[in-house]
């Protein structure tokens, strides 16, 4: 019975534990694996500590404690973990294929997006990004003023928007839906409210109405899309 309320506690529109895309799901798997391993290690160290305290004097060897546990055990666990994580990380990268590109241009304190509209022409929107569900897309991330960070927890990790730099971030939404996003890097007095929404629409259906979120193109933003 216990797992039900526990799992319910993991829900939420910004929860990394309720993934809706491959990148977020890989990280969630990594997290649960690391949590299990860490719990075991914590319990093990705790048990060793209790035994060591209860043990009223005895011999101890460096080979056992330092070379065995300190070096051997730690290094083995870390090697496996680092290898697995790097493999996962490689899977998430944006690579040179013909994936859909959208632009996210951050400014104090709003997100300006450019994405394909109903007639295939680019459409500029404010604080709402429209992408097709089930398809990988690259977010090309830039900044107008200070450092911001683009984050949609249910789809994947975050990527900073840094003045003078262009960052590329690959995401995919598995199913149509509304995904909440926010600026994760402290960017001044309006940081608290620098939220946005990603709407993943069903590509088989007619495109959603974008007019409510439409905004004029920001200077130079269109040029940043390769």
């Amino acid at each position, binding site marked *: 019975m216990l797992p039900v309320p526990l799992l319910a506690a993991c829900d939420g529109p910004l929860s990394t534990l309720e993934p809706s895309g491959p990148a977020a799901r890989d990280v969630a798997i990594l997290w649960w694996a690391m949590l299990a391993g860490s719990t075991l290690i*914590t319990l093990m160290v705790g048990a060793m500590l209790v035994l060591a305290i209860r043990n009223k004097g005895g011999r101890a060897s460096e080979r056992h404690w330092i070379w065995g546990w300190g070096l051997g055990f*730690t290094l083995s666990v*870390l090697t496996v973990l*680092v290898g697995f994580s790097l493999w996962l*990380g490689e899977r998430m990268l944006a690579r040179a294929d013909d994936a859909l590109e959208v632009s996210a241009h951050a400014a104090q304190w709003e997100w300006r997006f450019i994405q394909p509209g109903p007639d295939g022409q680019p459409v500029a929107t404010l604080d709402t990004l429209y992408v097709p569900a089930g398809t990988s897309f690259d977010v090309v991330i830039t900044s107008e003023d200070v450092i911001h960070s683009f984050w949609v927890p249910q789809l994947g990790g975050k990527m*900073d928007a840094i*003045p003078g730099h262009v960052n590329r971030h690959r995401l995919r939404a598995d199913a149509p839906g509304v995904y909440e996003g926010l600026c994760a890097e402290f960017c001044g007095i309006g940081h608290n409210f620098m939220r946005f929404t990603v709407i993943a629409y069903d590509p088989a259906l007619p495109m959603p109405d974008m007019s409510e979120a439409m905004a004029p193109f920001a200077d130079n933003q269109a040029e940043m899309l390769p």
Partner: protein
Amino acid sequence: MTVTSPADPRAIAPSEPMVDALDIAANPPRRALALHRELDAVWRDEPGWRGFFTSVNHGTIGLRFMVTAFVFFAIGGVLAMLIRAQLATQQGAFLDLDLYNQIFTMHGTIMMFLFAIPMLEGLALWLLPKILGARDMAFPRLSALGYWCYFFGGSVIVLSLVFGVAPDDGWFMYTPLSDRTHSPGVNADVWLLGVTFVEISAIAAAIEITVTILRCRAGGMALTRMPLMGWYLLGTAVMMLVGFPPLILGSILLEVQRAFDWPFFEVARGGDPLLWQHLFWLFGHPEVYIIFLPAAGALSTIIPILSRTTILGYGAIVAAVAGLVFLSFGLWVHHMFTVGIPHMALAFFSAASALVAVPTAIQIFAWIGTMWMGQVQFRLPMLYIMGFFATFVMGGLTGVMLAMVPFNWQAHDTHFVVAHLHYVLIGGFVFPMLAAVSYWMPLICGRWRVRGLGEAAFWLILIGFHGTFFLMHLTGLLGMPRRIAIYPANPEWEWLNLISSIFGMVMAAGFALFAFDVVMQWLFGRRSWRNPWRAPTLDWAMPLPAPSYNFASLPGPRHSDATALLPLARGEGLLPGAPRGWRETLVVEPGSGKPDHVAVLAHSTLLPLQTSAAIGSFFAAMLSGFYWLAPVGILLTIWAGWKWGDIMGTDRDHPPAQVAPGLALPLHFQRRNTLARTGTLALLLADGTLYASLMFGVGFLTVVAPNWPAPESGIATLPNLLAALVALGAMALGLVASFRAETTRTTPMGATWAMVGLGTGVLALAALAVLAYGLDDPTRHARDALRGVVLGFAVFHGVVASLLALRSLADHRQGRVSAARVGASPIWQLFQLFWLGTSAASFILILAQEVLT
């Protein structure tokens, strides 16, 4: 296989007895009380308020550092409670956004720069001479200077909160948010100038700690046998010497950008905000280990003693410390996994970040093995050590999680990281420090604690801590970012935050009770008997509370542990009493611990206070925007620095000091390789790191910053080339003069060479002024701005080298040199060489920039 038996009485280090290496006869015993009076008259602080301002004694200064740090900890803690009160509910209409930004920025800044670092400095200053067997730190006036810089700088930072102009860009001060355009107020200047002013104390402490450990140990205490605390603090000090300069450079560059519009971090003019992040985290990550190492040193000291055994794996622990020092400089990028660095580069830093867990794990298992070997006594310090284990292990594991790049992409900048860093810092620093304070309190105040209060405080802190931060991991995974004040759209975070806030108050109550307990112990505790923990280390080989001079006679090969308490008090050790009425301590060879000479240390003086006030006047002029007043502060600082030299040296040769029967050693005036020389080398290590950071900045912007190459430069002219060559030639001639001034010091030629050195210094500075005139406008492009800084670096060192030449000249004029006494010229040589070396490197760099473009 090395097996250490539990009954081993040698707790300092598992090696053969020291007497084999070096035999020094014992001094005849004297009356302990007479000896105490003789020494205390020389070593105690002056009475009354004057003593408060003039004290240079490590006992006074070290305690004062710790008490001040605890006051700042309380202030930072109050800010934390305000944050928790604000976040307890979704709408938290308690603080406005601007104030909230100031408060979380100040919480981080205070805890890092005004609590953690000064606390460890204070512990090191107070403890090191005692545990190594010396009477004071190597540079007592520098201890006091560091304290006053910390006190003034810290006060300005905290007072800014009262006036509502506290820093509000986050404790990491990322540009462009912290530049003049996006933070027009004085808030960011308070951070940059205040923290840099405080960091003078960190560099001062690092130099002192290094030199004290290398050269002020008990006679015959080889480096390989010193208490582990010595190794930990040596690692800490070296990390501070190498870790702080990047931050100091970054702060100087950012302040110059804010004040004079030199565009180091501004993209449009060739700068890059990522340069700030690199410089900040080049400091910021080693900083974590700078904080952790002294705490781990306390654990490695206390655990074996309270387990009635010796530490398991002394050599492995020393190797682990060295590994941590080395590795910690290779992982700063793990704070920057989301800035867009290629994944394969991140892989390197990810692996390094995971690898750093290995030396940490080695220590954890060595401590558990030590407990296994011995019989653990559940005294109060041991409770805090249990708190450390219960907290730090989890913090380390979440640290490994965050080192995994994909997980970091999700967890970065969320409350998961907030939880992690508090597990590491409170687990890895605060719990061990609480253990250390409760362990060393009898030595501080001579009293035993009041029963019960300490245990209650421990449980409140432990329960409060885990109640606050355990569930916060989940808060972060549910997506709550850092540095937000309200979350009206996310009711799912509220119950977690409410729990954190409630337990936060419990933890605060625990810390208040801890402070109350310490005060109670100080006032009402019963007198403690000597060496209450039955520890073997030298810090307990003295009466309680520790006397102003620590040891009536100094420990040596015959008196190398706490069992020598009475013989040392009776003057049977080395260098008993104060026969010349001076503060004297033994200086040894760095490796073997063989006694080398006797250092005469400074008495109480107002000079450190005056010097820090002079430096402070420069910072005040910069902060208030009266830039034209800043040169006055520089002149005052030069004047104060000159005064320091005035009371060094002596105008006559002194007979050797009788250290033990058959062993007479020269005073430091008659030695070339003095503490001051070792200290200068340590200072130049930090200085060289500052220069290397500057070169890193040049290289980084050249390769990474978007708006390069820079516009056409106008500096490639014949007059500029000639001026540069004249400057370098004059510096080289000055270097020759600095050596000749020493070798010919007994003849009139000595003064002539010093004058030549001074003349070449002035000539080189004049040539540098010509170059400054020929510089491109430094506000035009980051390349030109960096060239301005490179030139400023050369001018600064030219002034120092020329002043040292002037000091050598004064030495000759005032008869401070003789065949036996070398005066200031060895120090001058080091600075002159550094000046020439860095200037030549800068010249080659700029020449290459001009030729290659």
